[in-house]
C-alpha cells in the first residue's frame, strides 16, 4: 500500500519516475505527487489517479525526483494530504509509505515549539522532524528523526541544498534500490524499476541509504558505512501496459496458461523438497494466507491431505498470528509442523507477522510468493516463487492459479517421498498438471459464452456460490471475485450447508452458481441443485463435459474441458474470474482499481 519511487542521475527525472510510479499504481490510487528540484524544490500533487497529477504537472528538467502514489490511512484522500510532504519553508520533501504510530505526540511537541502543520497526515511530522535535526547532513538528520518515531515506514527524503542526493530508509515496508550507470533508483518493488536496471540492493530494516547519481552508501545504526550485496535480477520484459485488452484483469486472466507453464519447470522436473528443506517426516501442515491466497490454501488442504495423509489446517494470517500456538499450527507439540505461507507480494503485513510467529514457535516455514526478493522470502526457511509476472489488477487472478499449482506440486512430491503415492501415480499426476495450461486455454476460448451469461447477474442483489469438497474453496473464491470488482453482494457456501441457514435467503432474484464436478460428492450436489431449483432460484451449473444430468437440473450449464475432478479448481477458477469480470464490465465499475481496495496490503 502506497508506492514510492525516486531517481537521481544524469537524465531528466520526471518521465522516469512517472513511468515507474504508474507501475506501482496498484499499491494505491487515492492521490499522487512528485517532488523535483530546480534551484528550489518543486512539489506537484493531486487527488485521484496518477493521470490527474500528470495533467497539471509542469515540465521539469531536474535530474532528481521522488514520487508517491497513495492509499489513504491517516487523513482523507485530498490534494493537501497527498505526498510528497514538505517542511514549512519547502527545503525538505519526503515521501512515506506506512504509518507513524506516535505522530500525534510528535505533532503536539513540534506545535508547542511553534511549528505549523499543513495537512492532517501522520507523514507530515517527518519533514518537520528532519528540518529540526538538519545541520547540513541529511543522513544524520534522518537518523535522529528515526529515534523519535515509532511505526512502520519506508521514507525517501530530498533537500534543496543537495541537488544530487536522496536519502531513504525502511522499517517493515518494502524498499529496493536499483543501480544504474551514473544514475540510481529506488522504489517500493522491483517491477517499477526493472526496465532500467537489473542490479538490485535490498536494504535491511533501519539501514539508511544515501543515493547520489554516482554512488550508493548504506549506513548502519551508528551511521558507519557498511558493505552491501548487489543482486542480479532476471530481466523481466513484460510491462505494465494493457496491450489491446480493455483491463489489466482481463489481460492477466488470459495470461494464465503462460503463468502456469512458466511456473511448472521448478515444480515438476526437479523435486522442490530438498531445496525447501523438507526431507523429514512432517507431522502436520498449516497453510496461512489472506484473501484469494487463503482460498488457494484451502484447495491445497484437500489435495495435500488426499496425497499425503498429513493433516492440514488453513488459517487467515490475521487470525493465525494471534492464535494460541497449539491451535495455530494444528498440533504444534505432536511432531514437527510445517507452516506454508502464501502471499502474492511477499509484503502482506499479516502474513509476514504470521511467518515470524511460526518461526518463533519453532516451525519450519516455507512461502509461496510471486515477487522474488520480497520481504517474506528473506525471513522463511524455504521459498517457492510462482512465475506469474507482475499482477496489476487488484483482483488476484493468475497468482491464484499458480499458487494452487505450487500446492499441488508440493502435495505430489510430499506424497511420493512419504510413500503414499507410488512412481506411476506420481507420473500420472505430473502429466495431468502439465496439461493444465491447455485446459485453461479451452475455457478462455469459451469466454464469449460466459460474457453472455453475465448479463443475467447485473440486476441481482445477491449471488450465491456453492460447491463441495475441493470445489468448496472455489465457491468462496467466486464470491470474493464477484463482490470485489462488481460490488454485488456475494457469498460462497459448502453446498451441504445451505439447508442450515442460507437457503432462507434464496429467491427468484438470487442466482446461484453451483460447481458440480463428478467426484464422490456429485450426487449430493445434484440434489442440492434440485432443492434450490424448487425454490425457483436460477441455478447456473459448472459441470464436466457431457454431463446431461447437470444440464437438465439447471437453468444454464457451463461445460468444463475434460478434466480429472481433482484438478477441476483450475478451470473453475477461470470461469469465476471471467464471470466476475464480465458482470463488472456490464455494470461499468472500475475493474482494475476497485473502490477502497489496493493490492499488497502492507498495513495490518
Amino acid at each position, binding site marked *: 500500500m502506497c508506492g514510492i519511487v525516486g531517481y537521481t542521475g544524469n537524465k531528466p527525472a520526471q518521465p522516469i519516475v512517472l513511468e515507474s510510479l504508474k507501475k506501482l499504481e496498484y499499491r494505491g490510487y487515492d492521490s499522487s505527487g512528485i517532488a523535483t528540484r530546480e534551484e528550489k524544490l518543486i512539489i506537484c500533487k493531486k487527488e485521484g489517479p496518477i493521470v490527474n497529477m500528470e495533467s497539471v504537472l509542469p515540465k521539469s528538467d531536474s535530474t532528481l525526483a521522488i514520487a508517491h502514489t497513495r492509499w489513504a490511512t491517516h487523513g482523507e484522500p485530498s490534494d493537501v494530504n497527498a505526498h510528497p510532504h514538505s517542511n514549512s519553508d519547502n527545503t525538505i520533501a519526503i515521501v512515506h509509505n506506512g504509518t507513524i504510530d506516535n505522530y500525534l505526540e510528535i505533532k503536539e511537541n513540534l506545535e508547542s515549539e511553534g511549528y505549523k502543520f499543513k495537512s492532517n497526515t501522520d507523514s507530515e511530522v517527518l519533514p518537520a522532524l528532519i528540518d529540526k535535526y538538519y545541520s547540513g547532513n541529511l543522513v544524520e538528520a534522518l537518523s535522529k528523526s528515526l529515534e523519535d518515531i515509532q511505526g512502520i515506514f519506508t521514507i525517501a527524503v530530498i533537500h534543496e541544498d543537495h541537488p544530487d542526493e536522496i536519502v531513504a530508509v525502511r522499517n517493515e515496508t518494502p524498499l529496493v534500490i536499483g543501480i544504474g550507470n551514473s544514475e540510481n533508483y529506488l522504489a517500493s518493488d522491483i517491477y517499477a524499476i526493472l526496465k532500467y536496471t537489473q542490479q538490485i540492493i535490498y536494504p535491511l530494516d533501519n539501514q539508511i541509504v544515501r543515493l547520489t547519481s554516482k554512488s550508493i552508501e548504506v549506513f548502519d545504526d551508528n551511521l558507519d558505512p557498511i558493505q552491501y550485496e548487489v543482486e542480479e535480477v532476471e530481466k523481466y*520484459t*513484460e*510491462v505494465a*501496459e*494493457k*496491450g*489491446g*485488452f480493455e483491463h489489466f484483469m482481463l*489481460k492477466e486472466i*488470459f*495470461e494464465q496458461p*503462460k503463468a502456469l*507453464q*512458466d511456473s*511448472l*519447470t*521448478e515444480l*515438476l*522436473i*526437479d523435486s522442490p523438497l530438498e531445496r525447501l528443506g523438507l526431507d523429514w517426516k512432517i507431522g502436520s501442515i498449516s497453510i496461512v494466507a489472506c484473501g484469494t491466497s487463503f482460498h488457494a490454501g484451502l484447495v491445497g488442504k484437500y489435495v495435500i491431505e488426499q496425497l499425503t495423509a498429513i493433516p492440514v489446517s488453513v488459517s487467515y494470517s490475521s487470525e493465525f498470528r494471534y492464535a494460541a500456538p497449539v491451535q495455530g499450527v494444528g498440533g504444534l507439540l505432536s511432531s514437527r509442523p510445517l507452516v506454508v505461507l502464501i502471499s502474492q507480494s511477499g509484503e502482506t503485513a499479516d502474513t509476514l507477522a504470521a511467518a515470524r510467529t511460526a518461526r518463533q514457535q519453532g516451525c519450519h516455514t516455507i512461502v509461496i510468493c510471486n515477487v522474488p526478493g520480497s520481504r517474506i522470502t528473506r525471513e522463511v526457511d524455504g521459498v517457492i516463487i510462482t512465475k506469474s509476472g507482475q499482477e496489476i489488477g487488484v483482483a488476484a487472478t493468475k497468482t491464484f492459479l499458480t499458487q494452487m499449482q505450487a500446492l499441488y506440486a508440493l502435495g505430489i512430491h510430499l506424497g511420493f517421498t512419504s510413500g503414499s503415492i507410488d512412481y506411476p501415480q506420481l507420473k500420472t499426476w505430473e*502429466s495431468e498438471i*502439465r*496439461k493444465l*495450461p*491447455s485446459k485453461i*486455454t*479451452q475455457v*478462455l*476460448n469459451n*469466454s464469449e459464452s460466459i460474457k453472455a451469461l453475465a448479463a443475467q447477474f447485473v440486476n441481482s442483489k445477491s449471488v450465491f456460490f456453492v460447491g463441495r469438497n475441493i470445489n468448496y474453496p472455489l465457491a468462496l473464491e467466486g464470491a470474493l471475485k464477484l463482490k470485489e470488482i462488481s460490488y454485488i453482494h456475494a457469498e460462497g457456501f459448502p453446498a451441504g450447508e445451505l439447508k442450515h441457514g442460507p437457503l432462507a435467503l434464496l429467491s427468484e432474484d438470487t442466482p446461484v452458481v453451483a460447481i458440480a464436478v463428478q467426484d464422490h460428492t456429485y450426487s449430493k450436489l445434484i440434489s442440492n441443485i434440485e432443492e434450490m431449483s424448487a425454490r425457483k432460484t436460477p441455478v447456473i451449473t459448472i459441470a464436466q463435459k457431457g454431463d446431461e444430468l447437470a444440464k437438465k437440473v439447471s437453468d444454464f450449464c457451463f461445460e468444463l474441458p475434460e478434466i480429472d475432478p481433482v484438478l477441476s479448481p483450475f478451470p473453475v477458477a477461470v470461469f469465476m474470474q471471467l464471470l466476475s469480470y464480465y458482470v463488472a464490465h456490464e455494470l461499468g465499475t472500475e475493474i482494475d482499481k476497485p473502490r477502497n481496495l489496493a493490492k499488497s496490503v502492507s498495513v495490518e
Partner: protein
Amino acid sequence: MQAIILTAGEGARLSGWTSNRPKGMLNLGNRPILEYLVRGITDSGINEINMVVGYGKNSVMSYFGDGTSFNCKINYFFQEERTGTLEALRIGMDGIRDEFILVPGDNYVSSKAFKSLRKFNTNVLLSGQAERWSKWGEIELVGGKANITFENPNAYGRIHFTGIMKINKSLASRLIEISGSHLGEALQALGSEYPFEVVKADYWHNVVYPWDLISGNSMALRDNLLYRSGKIEKNVSIRGDVSIGKGTIIRSGTYLQGPLSIGESCDIGPNSVIGPSVSIGDNTTIGAFTEIVDSIVMKNCEINSNCSLKGTVVGDDNIFGSHCVAVPSTRNILYLGQEFSISNRGAMVGDGCKIGSRAVLEGGSILLNNATIGEGELYNAVFQGDSI
C-alpha cells in the same frame, strides 16, 4: 515508417490446428509465424505496428502485449466479422501517417525482406517464388510495369505476390474505395495507375495446408535462436544447431541433430533420437527409444516410447501410445473436397488426439481435432470430426 499486420482471419484450411488461435500464432521453429514478421519489421527499423486482430485475438494480444518485449509499440484494432482483407486494411489505417508496410499475417518471409522494401521511395510489392497458387496472384512485369494476374494455372516456381507491400496513405485510400473484399483483387483493379517496384524475398512460405507446416518449419529453423538451458544428462550427443528451452531435461543416451528447437519444460528420452528439422513445443514429453525426424510436435504432447515420427505434424495436447508409427509417403489425397498430390509427408495430426499403442498412421493421412485411433489400428484416410 509504420507497419500494419493483418491477422484477423481463421485459416480454415488448417482448422485442425487453428481452433484456438489464428494462423499467425501457429509455431514454426517454436515461435509463432507472427513473431518472425514482427521481428523482421522491427529489425528494419520500424517500431510502430498496427495489428488487426479478430479470430483468436486474445492469444495474439497476450503473446505480444504492447510490443515492448519486441522493441516496438503495437496498437491493436479489431475486425470481429470476417469481412475480408480490404476491410481489415481500412480498420488498420487508424493513425497511419504516410508510408507503411502492409503484411498479411500468414506469410513466412526472410526477415531481410523488410529492409529491402525500405530501400525504395516508391510503392513496392514483395514477391516470392511460389510452390502453388497464392491468393495474391502472380506478378508479371510488362514493359517495366508490375502487373498482378490470376490467369496462369500452373504456379509452381513462378514469381508470385506475397501480399506484403510498402505503400503510401493515398494509395491505401484508393484501394479502400474499391468495392469488394479482397485486397489482391483491389490491387489488380487499380491496374497500372500506380507504378510499383518489385522486390523478391530470399525465401517465402505461404502456410495454407497442413503439410505446408513441415516445409515452413524447416525454413524457420534457419532462424533458430540458439539458446541452451535446461538439464542435459551424461552421454547426450548434440550435433548442429540445437536450442533447448529452460526447465527441459534431456535424458541419457539421447541423440539430438540440429536444426532442432526444443521448448521449455520438456522431458526427452532416455535414448531418443530427435532431428534434424524438428520443433518440439513446450511441455512435451518424449519417451525412450522414440525417433522424430523432420516433424513438428506442438505443446503439451505425450509421445511414449518406441515411436517413429517422420515428416509429421502433431498438434497440441496429443497422446501417442508406445510403438506408434507415422512415416512419409508420396501420394494423392483428398482434403476439403479437393485432390492434392503430396510428396514425402507423414501424418498430420490436429489438437487433442489420442493415438493408441502400435497404431500406424500412413503418410499423408490427416486427423483433425480430438480424434481417437485405437490400439494397433492402421489409419490412412482423411478424417474430419470430433471422434471416430
